[in-house]
């Protein structure tokens, strides 16, 4: 292992009041890995993604993205809390797609996707729009450039949201239950986009999902969370067909029976 992991979590903990959501998580993820994160509701998997996106702050532990500390500055006499500017710089390598899309309702599809490259990365208007059009083409929505979010189906909204996140050219993409809010018949189109992304690029992907079959198909690694700890971590074939831990086995039994 001479390669530097693109994500390194070390002893990360997070509580909401009395509830300990993450209990000292250690996790390394290498560049280009596609990781499915599974586990019961409230097991801490979404919180993990939100910590990587700085939507929540960890109570303890360190997070490194592509070698840089997300919440700390590393100088000669150890780690100290980083100013917001530093955090902002580091987290620019991370993109996120949300369960409820969170598209900007007052902007056209094209503006939704081109806005951040234009305003944050300082691209020219033309370049930003070109990039947006290309990405929207990739998710099959080139004909919706001038539509507004409320004119789209849930599946289309989520595809726009994926294009929007990709437009910032992140090294890591986080997908937080991106099909959970969709009607069943729309789940497929979004999963297809994710699969394409996984096979055609070497983007690092963290996918929190409740769809076990999809989790197995898309990932080259699966992490099973329960009650704030990583219970099992390994190849999809192993975890889904022959889990080592009793808790993993029971969880998979329950969800697979339900579907």
């Amino acid at each position, binding site marked *: 292992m001479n390669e530097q992991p693109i994500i390194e979590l070390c002893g990360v903990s997070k509580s909401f009041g009395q509830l300990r959501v993450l209990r000292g998580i250690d996790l390394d993820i290498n560049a280009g890995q596609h990781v499915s994160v599974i586990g019961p509701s409230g097991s801490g998997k979404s919180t993990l993604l939100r910590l990587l996106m700085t939507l929540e702050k960890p109570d303890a532990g360190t997070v490194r993205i592509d070698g840089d500390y997300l919440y700390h500055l590393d100088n000669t006499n150890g780690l100290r809390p980083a100013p917001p500017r530093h955090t902002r710089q580091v987290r620019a390598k991370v993109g996120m797609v949300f369960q409820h899309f969170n598209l900007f*309702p007052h902007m056209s599809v094209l503006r939704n996707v081109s806005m951040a490259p234009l305003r944050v990365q300082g691209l020219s208007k033309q370049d930003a729009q070109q990039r947006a059009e290309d990405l929207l083409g990739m998710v099959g929505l080139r004909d919706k450039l001038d539509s507004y979010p409320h004119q789209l189906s849930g599946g289309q909204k989520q595809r726009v949201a994926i294009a929007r996140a990709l437009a910032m050219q992140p090294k890591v993409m986080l997908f937080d239950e991106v099909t959970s809010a969709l009607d069943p018949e729309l789940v497929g189109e979004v999963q297809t986009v994710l699969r394409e992304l996984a096979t055609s690029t070497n983007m690092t992907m963290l996918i929190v999902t409740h769809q076990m079959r999809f989790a197995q198909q898309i990932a080259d690694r699966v992490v099973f969370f329960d009650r704030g700890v990583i219970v099992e971590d390994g190849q999809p074939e192993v975890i889904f067909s022959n889990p080592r831990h009793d808790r993993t086995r029971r969880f998979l039994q329950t969800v697979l029976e339900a579907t």
Partner: protein
Amino acid sequence: MPAIFDLLPFLLDGLWVTVQVTAGGAVVAAVAALGAGLGRLSKYRVIRAVSATYAEFFRGTSALVQLYWAFYALPLLVGLQIDALPAAIWVLGLNIGAYGSEVVRGAVLAVPKGQREAAVALSLTQRQCLWRIIIPQAVPAMLPPIGNLLIELLKSTALVSLVTLSDLTFRAKLLRDDTPDRVLEIFCLLLLVYFLLSMAITSLVRGLERYLGRRMDRVRSA
């Protein structure tokens, strides 16, 4: 009864002051409401406290008391006379702005949390998030209560007649002194003029709502 309208020119001489105080007050109120409304949501305790104190102070004391205080007490305190017109514009503007800050605060809080999170995920700065994401979505929700506040502002401008400003109401009182037997006509006409001004404000705000209507639909269904 066209006779009543011979009173109109004299009355309407006061219209300019009424319009000036309303328009000037609206500008002051808008700035104060936005500043204090956003200030109350600031992450800095000091800014929150200052904004809340401003709002509670102006909402808690009466508009007329504020006006008299600025007109009679403040000059004694600072030792110089303040022009009645700017004083009136400031006082009434700050008064309505205090109520407006609640409107701004509520509308900003009503924007779903996910919008802010999406802005973070896209590396927008806080300022970009506020002006490009939050405010554009909050404004349509603010419009109807803002329309009501503008009517309140217009109505409160009648108070400036009590601090020597020659607005519509002041002119009506002068007319009453000159022609006491026509007092019914005078005040009916005065009420009518205010009513028409209110209608004008209402239709202005409604027009703005319609103009932003498409946007509001989007916001509602997103």
